[in-house]
């Protein structure tokens, strides 16, 4: 492929990246309209081509939206005048406007809105609405409002049928297919996959840290390959994806042989739903980090932006971080200086500045990087203790599960009896006066009441809570059910993340290093990366 074609291809796919960037940045009065998980869900629909069913749901939702509008058929208000795209916002919006809808056409229930057509019925769950809303926003950015509005026009008829909705959905599917054919080229991915497999003689099992570094040293300065493999972090991620893809393909093959999945498979044509499931399974380790940024977890600042950035490559690698420990470390340490070089190059910096950046090198050594991971582990443990205090303050029984995480084997029966498992009835005004809570917390710190072990853990929890000056740790949790949920479920996510960091640190501890220690390894790698950066960016350092 010539360089012009490569640029053309990159330009087409960058439009899609720009649309996803816009989707992620879309806000309602400063708050993100679509959660990171919703944006990721749309990404999966697009790359796995599983958008047909969601488009059908969306078209039914457009009918409902037009029905709920004061001006019949004006579906826009439902999607752009209902606030942040959350199930609860859509539910509230539907309840508020149900009065204006034709009761023979639309019913607002607690879990769904139900549509009745002459030729059938359809129900849409509120939990699906954030994704469907984001899908419409994506479609409008990709295809334009006029084209979309024309395609949705048949749905604004007062007597639109279920068949009309299906036809509109099919029409949108065809339009999106055509758009993606143009803007989601497969050639680049195909090329990357084939080059890497060819480099390791079609055997992904031989991929290790040394092979990845060698590949980058060659490919990043290769005129033809360089476009795809310039940065070390992108090379590491690509290798990780190749290994994950090969493993997933083997798993699928084994399932087919065992007859667990359908036998109508043709080589290279995986059922889109199966492909989507495969992606979900690969993303298992990064998902907790993404989830922490969405409601209700985002009410508590468990991890700040820098802490999340520090964990991204490690969690993207998942269990492969244990197989490619040096690559993950190299990527984390040497990617920032390479990013600075790329930025400098973009603003046409002189060679002397590039040389200066290369000379300056990374901001941290391998040992310092490991200390960052250790600090993250300690911070997560600290957050778990603080969450325990918050949940105990709210008298939530979820506190028990955190105690079990922090101190497995502890006798918590004393605590168990004191926590109230029953949800507060909504029609009763609770009187959690400060003095009652203080008394309750005193009891939880009293060894005679809850036992030595629990009292000690509760004291540590209180200290941790008071020491955290982040969002969520200072609010009154007693009257905030969402905050209770954020602390209890957030603790589970933190636990998963912590396990991955612990396992990785242990792997690094036991890693046999050629030079005898981390200092020697870093010095060696530093010279390799400095030399390679000079070759790529034309510096002479």
């Amino acid at each position: 492929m010539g360089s012009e074609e490569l640029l053309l291809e990159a330009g087409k796919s960058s439009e899609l990246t720009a649309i996803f960037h816009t989707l992620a940045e879309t806000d309602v009065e400063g708050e993100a309209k679509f959660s990171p998980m919703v944006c990721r869900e749309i990404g999966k629909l697009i790359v796995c081509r599983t958008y047909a069913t969601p488009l059908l749901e969306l078209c039914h939702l457009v009918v409902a939206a037009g029905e709920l509008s004061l001006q019949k058929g004006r579906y826009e208000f439902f999607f752009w005048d209902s606030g942040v795209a959350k199930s609860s916002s859509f539910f509230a919006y539907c309840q508020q406007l149900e009065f204006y809808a034709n009761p023979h056409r639309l019913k607002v229930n607690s879990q769904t809105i139900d549509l009745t057509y002459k030729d059938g019925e359809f129900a849409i769950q509120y939990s699906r609405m954030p994704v469907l809303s984001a899908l419409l926003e994506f479609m409008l950015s990709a295809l334009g409002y006029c084209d979309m509005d024309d395609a949705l026009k048949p749905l604004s008829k007062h007597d639109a049928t279920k068949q009309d909705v299906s036809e509109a959905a099919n029409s949108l599917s065809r339009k999106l297919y055509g758009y993606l054919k143009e803007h989601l080229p497969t050639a680049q991915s195909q090329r990357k996959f084939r080059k890497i497999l060819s480099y390791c003689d079609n055997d992904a099992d031989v991929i290790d840290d040394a092979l990845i570094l060698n590949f980058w040293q060659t490919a990043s300065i290769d005129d033809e390959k360089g476009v795809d493999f310039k940065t070390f972090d992108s090379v590491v991620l690509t290798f990780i994806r190749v290994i994950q893809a090969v493993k997933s393909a083997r798993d699928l093959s084994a399932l087919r042989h065992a007859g667990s999945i359908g036998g109508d498979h043709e080589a290279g044509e995986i059922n889109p739903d199966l492909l989507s499931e495969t992606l979900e399974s690969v993303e298992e380790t990064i998902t907790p980090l993404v989830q922490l940024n969405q409601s209700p977890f985002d009410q508590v600042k468990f991890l700040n932006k820098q802490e999340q950035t520090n964990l991204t490559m490690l969690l993207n690698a998942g269990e492969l971080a244990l197989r490619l420990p040096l690559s993950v470390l190299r990527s984390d340490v040497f990617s920032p200086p390479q990013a600075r070089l790329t930025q400098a190059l973009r603003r046409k910096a002189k060679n002397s500045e590039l040389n200066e950046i290369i000379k300056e090198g990374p901001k941290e050594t391998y040992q310092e990087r490991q200390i960052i991971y250790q600090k993250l582990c300690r911070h997560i443990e600290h957050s778990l203790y603080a969450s325990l205090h918050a949940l105990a303050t709210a008298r939530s029984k979820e506190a028990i599960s955190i105690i079990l995480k922090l101190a497995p084997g502890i006798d918590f029966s004393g605590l168990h009896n004191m926590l109230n498992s029953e949800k507060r009835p909504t029609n009763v005004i609770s009187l959690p006066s400060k003095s009652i809570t203080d008394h309750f917390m005193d009891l939880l710190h009293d060894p005679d009441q809850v036992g030595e072990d629990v009292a000690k853990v509760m004291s540590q929890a209180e200290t941790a809570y008071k020491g955290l000056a982040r969002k969520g740790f200072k609010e009154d949790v007693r009257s905030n059910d969402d905050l209770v949920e954020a602390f209890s479920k957030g603790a589970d996510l933190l636990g998963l993340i912590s396990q991955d960091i612990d396992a990785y640190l242990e792997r690094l501890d036991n890693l046999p290093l050629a030079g005898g220690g981390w200092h020697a390894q870093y010095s060696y790698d530093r010279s390799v990366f400095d030399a390679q950066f000079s070759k790529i960016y034309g510096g002479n350092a």
Partner: protein
Amino acid sequence: MSSPSTKDAETIFQALDQLDHLLSATDETPQKVGFNELFSYAHNPKHVPSPALNNALMNDLSVRRDLKRLLSKQALAHLPRAAAASTGDIVEREADGFRLTLKVSKADETQIYLLIEAIDRSESPSLVFVQEEDGPIYRLVIDDFYDGEAQILLQSDNEVLKALRKAKSEVILR
């Protein structure tokens, strides 16, 4: 390379790689003008358009087309281009129960008042959109439509004023 397992692996890799690519935006990644912003711009007088939207409204035909469609659906009043016989600058337009008049300030000739009056309508518009023929769409916010009228003071070199004076411009009140 052609074994079924390798072909599957390639398909899975493509999806993973494309997903990484789609979600790889950094602060420096360009953005498209989203419909969310276009809707706010068309509806909400408090919405401050981003530089990207301002740029798109000047240069991007498809964004202008989308805004026009949106405005046509929700216009309180549509004051179309002036009659073909009109020559010179337009100082008054009337349609759909509203009248727009341009008047030079007595105190300062470089300042022009845009008077918006409801002749036989009870609604209060909050936004004025002016579209030049095949040109950009401008927006003015009506801060205080009181007792059936409002006035906006404009400098004589204001782009919106220039557009309002052109016979082939269209005006939408929202």
